[in-house]
């Protein structure tokens, strides 16, 4: 990349800001980055206007780290803009990678979401029926708001993505490692998932695994989990078997089951379906009624299995009308 400083942008779409904090969590390393790179856009930390980006030449940016999903027309507009201006676009974090937590909104329709958020919410004063509109006319002025899409998309549904850096948020050491690789200029094949392992989380989880047979599912607060044994074997639904490693198994190490933010293993098409198949296969019963009773211990399994990956799943969203 020559002697020129790297030109980079960081952006958040439909996200929570945690990914930006993860960049800051690299601590002093961010200063090294600042020494090597010009940060041209970073709404959470640096002042800047979209106009500044629009005025750049195509390909002027070396790298954009895009976090957040695509929920509305603004997210998509900026994604397309940054794609045009950037030589490398990285889907940063679970939301850009697979839709993430915002992607769970795909279990509901846009109308249901509006109803809950703007019409029938305990914090809404009765009679207030204001909902966001893409076009509003006030005192003769036409005001525009981003258009709220029918559903949430992942970043590569709307633009071409070069690399995926998973995690909610990505582990700081992985962020650092990926930035170092990009600075080095020795790039992995396009489309790679970077900053993550190729095996399941169980590989780096230090809990002891035994043969699995589940007679009862339990919520983490219902038991004092054995600190040494596999959580799933204790009946606690853990997405670790169906999730990529790379985070250092920080959740299970802290007695919190994996929620699956690093996404499925390479070659696995649908993380939720795989988690379903795995955990149900080891249920210790041959009796349909007992199986139902055991499965009753998994409330909102769909929300758990697709907590970060619904827009990246085979069905992507509820088709309820």
């Amino acid at each position, binding site marked *: 990349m020559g002697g020129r400083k790297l030109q980079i942008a960081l952006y958040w779409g439909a996200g929570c800001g945690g990914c930006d904090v993860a960049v800051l969590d690299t601590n002093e390393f961010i200063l090294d980055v600042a020494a090597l790179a010009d940060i041209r856009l970073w709404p959470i930390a640096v002042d800047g206007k979209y106009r500044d980006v629009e005025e750049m030449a195509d390909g002027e940016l070396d790298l954009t780290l895009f976090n957040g999903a695509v929920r509305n027309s603004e997210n998509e507009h900026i994604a397309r803009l940054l794609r045009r201006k950037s030589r490398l676009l990285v889907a940063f974090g679970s939301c850009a990678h697979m839709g993430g937590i915002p992607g769970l909104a795909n279990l509901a329709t846009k109308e249901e979401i509006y109803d809950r958020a703007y019409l029938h919410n305990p914090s809404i004063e009765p009679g207030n029926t204001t909902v966001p509109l893409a076009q509003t006319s006030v005192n003769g002025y036409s005001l525009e708001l981003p258009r709220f899409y029918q559903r949430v998309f992942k970043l590569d549904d709307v633009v071409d993505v070069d690399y995926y850096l998973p995690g909610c948020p990505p582990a700081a050491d992985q962020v650092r490692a990926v930035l170092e690789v990009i600075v080095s200029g020795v790039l992995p094949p396009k489309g790679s998932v970077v900053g993550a392992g190729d*095996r399941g989380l169980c590989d780096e989880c230090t809990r002891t695994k*035994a*043969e699995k047979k589940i007679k009862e599912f339990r919520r983490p607060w219902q038991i004092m989990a054995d600190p040494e044994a596999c959580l799933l074997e204790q009946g606690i639904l853990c997405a*670790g*078997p169906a999730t990529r490693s790379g985070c250092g198994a920080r959740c299970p190490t802290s007695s919190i089951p994996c929620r699956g933010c690093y996404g499925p293993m390479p*070659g696995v098409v649908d993380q939720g379906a795989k988690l379903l*198949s795995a955990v149900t*296969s*080891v249920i210790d019963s041959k009796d349909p009624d007992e199986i139902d009773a055991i499965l009753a211990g998994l409330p909102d399994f769909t929300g758990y299995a697709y907590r970060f990956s619904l827009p990246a799943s085979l069905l992507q969203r509820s088709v309820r009308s």
Partner: protein
Amino acid sequence: MDQPRIGVYVCACGTNIAKVVDCDAVVRAAEGLPGVAVATTYKYMCSTPGQEMIVADIEEKKLDRVVVASCSPRMHELTFRKAVKKASMNQYYLQMANIREHCSWVHGDGVEATQKAIGLVRAAVKRVAFHEPLESRMVAMCPNTLVLGGGIAGLTAALELADAGYQVYLVEKADHLGGNLARVDLTAPHLDSARDLLRERIHRVMGHPHVEPFLGAEVQSLEGYVGNFTATVAVPGGNGAGPAAAEGDDGPTDGGGATRSPRTLEVGSVIVATGYREFDASRITHFGYGKLPNVITSFEFERMVREGRIETVEGRQPQYVAILHCVGSRSQEFHAYCSRVCCMTALKYAHELKSAVPGCYVSDVYIDMHAFGKGCEDFYRRSSEVKTLFLMYGKNDYPVIRKAEPGDDCGMLIEVSEQLSGELIEIPADLVILMVGMEAREDSAEVARLVGISQDKDGWFIESHPKLDPVATTTEGVFIAGTCAAPKDIPDSVAQARAAAARILGKIARGSIEVDAVFAEIDEEACSGCRICNELCPYSAIEYKADEKRSRVISALCKACGACVAACPSGAIRARHFTDEQIFAEIVGVLA
């Protein structure tokens, strides 16, 4: 993947397919599919010219994949695999589309059937592009055999193998050999002595240089796979009298009652000949078994005959004897099946009674008289000539047995709704013999699990194919013989035992065995060691290597069911010939 060169062969099956499916339209549709180099239809693809056409095309047109759209793959997959093999193509480069059983034979509308046939061919074409060449492997065959059960079937199989010069380990749970047959006096229809049938066999087994019998013993575990099983047999202490102890023994010697360590046996094949148990007659309340002392089971009658004393519990010779058929068999509440041997055994009892208690009246109360075996119909005719009263009762319309009044000249009265006359008939009886049927042994589920075979809904062990392969099981190297598979008589049990032995001798003669190329395999680079798969395998084909934290499939043990493949959350287990890519291609193909 390079673009494959696929040949598509649409069989007309005479008119079986062509009368409903427009085979030419299927050919035209196939021609338009990516990768299809040749598509054609022929009246019988399975005929010699049909197969030769495929062979010639593979060679001349340089095909590397073949799709045959014809009958069910369960019918002719092997035929066409052999055909492509002839052309030096790997046999797994074949895929069949079932356009007969699943299409032309079940759909009347030609347009719809043709559309469906095109969909099935499209799926096969898309799938076959993902097929991989697979090679089966050869493993050594251990010539020793483990026989479970020392009844007539087990004894026969053991001797058949031992006489051929191969080592047999015969494990019998009881402390003596002979099984259920040892409880019988004469056999039907020729009235041969069961003792004679058994004596010679037991004697030879006990003294045979190639048979090591274990009495009062049980198999604890069976591991390994065809040709290479390891069995552990527990021999209880204090059984030193058995010849097993006379042979060289790995364990510490019998210390007069001390439990010996289990024996470990290397065997290549297993014959399960664990037999049956009799139906518990007290489960049927109408017959008063257990309450009326002179209502006895067929086995209790056998004991009387063997002891030479046919008498009531009061010590009197019976004047009237009734024999009641189908006790526990052919009924809605108990067993729907026929136990096969009871009818002829009942006739035998009539003979035995007539000769032991001349002048006694025998009534034979049956549902249908099943006299299907060789010589059985003659036996039935002879029995009806010796003044046996035959009364036919209806299925689930049980005769009722009650105690007679003091004034009656008999102990009991049986009320039968007689089917042929349509009348309610009451017959006297001093002794009632209940022909108890056969049922699966109480330990049959345990045995099935131990050796890895399946049971049907009645608990009988399931054969590999009910008609064409009634000796083998779905676990290669494990065979079944005798009444553990279903009720059968002595000739059938012996025939099955000899057949099982012959199958094993065939394998031994070849010296090595081919292990199927279709099995699951774990990509250890992708396995996370989560151990979800470990417990799922019914064949214990998955082993976990604790030091490496990875699971591995022992391919020779794998039966390719794919349970672990579907469950593996890492996508690390591949089902050869049933990969995700292949099945996805089929899904897309049938829906395109």
